[in-house]
């Protein structure tokens, strides 16, 4: 062992290059957030974070309503997650276990929702929400986002339910459980890992979403982090390192959360997509 062959060396070099390219922008976000303003505009770039600058983060929370933004984003993301999963479980079960007239159409309709841009639906939705007094409310954002996550999650859960042997349910059936009982008591626990993946995907969508949050909400108290952060584009009064600090604070929960359940997300995504 000890000495790498040329091929292994090239292979490792390629992988390191790939990881460097993937990790550099988040790293640069972090370095910039911990670099004093003067150094950002000096002749030479600092490639390492200046850890003594950590106070900049406290400063950001003092001068920018980051905490409010994050709480709003968390509310929207959590609401979207809960509502999407509640709505997706039953159709996922039905698509997996029943044959019925209209199944193909419903399946295609789920797929077709992937083609609708938020920017296109935002105008009619604005009108609908105005009539229902859902404008300028986080509930409205949750409702709008859920429409976009339900199809994906239904598909992923269907893939997972396909993998459960029918015999497991038959035993419960003989014991006289109703269909809904079976789904909740037998099927849901068995697809728990995929459910975790689906929850993360829905959470992400709510946490990251920008168009609806920008258009359907107007009051500052209900601003989400995506909209707050987007407000820095083209405005020059906030120092670059503060903007990057907010970006880090906003990105970190998403990435950490994702790494945490990464394994399940990957298996859930691929169960849903590869088997299609």
């Amino acid at each position: 062992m000890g000495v790498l062959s040329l091929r292994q060396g090239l292979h490792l070099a390629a992988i390191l290059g790939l990881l460097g390219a993937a990790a550099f922008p988040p790293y640069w976000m972090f370095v910039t957030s911990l670099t004093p303003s003067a150094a950002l505009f000096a002749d030479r770039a600092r490639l390492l974070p200046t850890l003594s600058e950590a106070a900049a983060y406290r400063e950001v929370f003092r001068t920018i309503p980051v905490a409010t933004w994050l709480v709003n984003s968390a509310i929207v993301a959590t609401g979207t997650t809960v509502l999407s999963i509640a709505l997706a479980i039953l159709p996922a079960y039905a698509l997996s276990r029943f044959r019925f007239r209209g199944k193909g159409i419903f399946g295609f309709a789920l797929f077709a929702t992937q083609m609708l841009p938020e920017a296109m639906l935002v105008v009619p939705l604005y009108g609908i929400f105005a009539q229902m007094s859902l404008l300028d409310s986080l509930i409205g954002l949750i409702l709008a986002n859920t429409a976009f996550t339900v199809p994906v999650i239904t598909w992923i859960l269907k893939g997972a339910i396909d993998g459960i042997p029918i015999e497991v349910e038959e035993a419960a059936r003989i014991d006289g459980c109703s269909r809904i009982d079976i789904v909740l008591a037998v099927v849901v626990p068995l697809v728990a890992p995929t459910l975790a993946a689906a929850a993360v995907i829905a959470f992400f969508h709510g946490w990251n979403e920008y168009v609806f949050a920008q258009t359907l909400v107007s009051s500052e108290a209900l601003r989400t982090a995506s909209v707050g952060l987007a407000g820095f584009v083209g405005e020059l009064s906030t120092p670059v390192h503060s903007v990057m600090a907010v970006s880090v604070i906003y990105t970190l929960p998403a990435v950490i959360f994702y790494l945490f359940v990464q394994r399940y997300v990957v298996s859930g995504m691929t169960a849903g997509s590869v088997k299609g």
Partner: protein
Amino acid sequence: MADERLHGSAWTPYLFMAPAAGYLLFFQGYPLIEELYLSFTSTSLLSPRDHTWVGLDNYRDLFATSDFHHVLWITALYTAACVVLSIGLGLTAALLLDESFPGRAIARTLVTIPWAAPPVAVALVYIWMYNAQYGIFSRTLRALGIASGTENWLDDPSLALPAILLTTVWQIFPFASVVILAALQGVSKEQREAAVIDGADRLSVFAAVVWPTIRPTVALLALFITIWSLRRFDLIWLMTQGGPIGATNTLVIELYRQAFVYRDLGRAAAVGMIGLGTALAMTLVYFRYTQRAERAQGND
């Protein structure tokens, strides 16, 4: 199959479908129909309740302008490049990460980080990296003496689209690599070993054994990346607003400009419908292709 062994009433599947179907009809179906209707009317953002029926005028007017031809061209270019580059890079990454090496699990995890980053934050860090004077890209180019490195890529009509593409591909190639990596688990070890024993080089092994196994997955990925690229908004809007001089003006950006900059909801809806038609056409092409591929395999 299943339903014969687990009899429920004939209504059960419909009861199970009803809540989600109703929800989607209300929040997506109905707005879509309204948008379709709007595309045949002249409607202003300032009085969204007053529609004047104009038939196909919005579509006719759009196709009559060279600006819109440019939008279609940019959309095609952006979408095709997203598909080719993301799948190319994703496939390369997947093949690299499929072999065993020390730290493989960590590497597989790290590669997926870009996909987890919120697009708004990604747009902001890239805007900073593309900065003409102080951005890391310009600084690097200057240090290497390759270019003067004083232009902001996002302000240059010929560099803005490549800059947007670089950001997009960075964000979505991990997804492609994760999906392809999963498909690679299905490649038969025996076939691979047999090919190697027959003296095939790596490229022929890939073409003869690996590629046929992962091809359906790659085709499905291509469809999804196409559809997502046709609707991607936040990354492009925040970085360039479709500029400079329309260099990054894709259909969705144009839709947003028509609605909120020119305040013409009818025209915006027509742009949206054209985009939707494009996505549907791509889906049909995909289904025709997969059916043909299945038939071809059946005759082998």
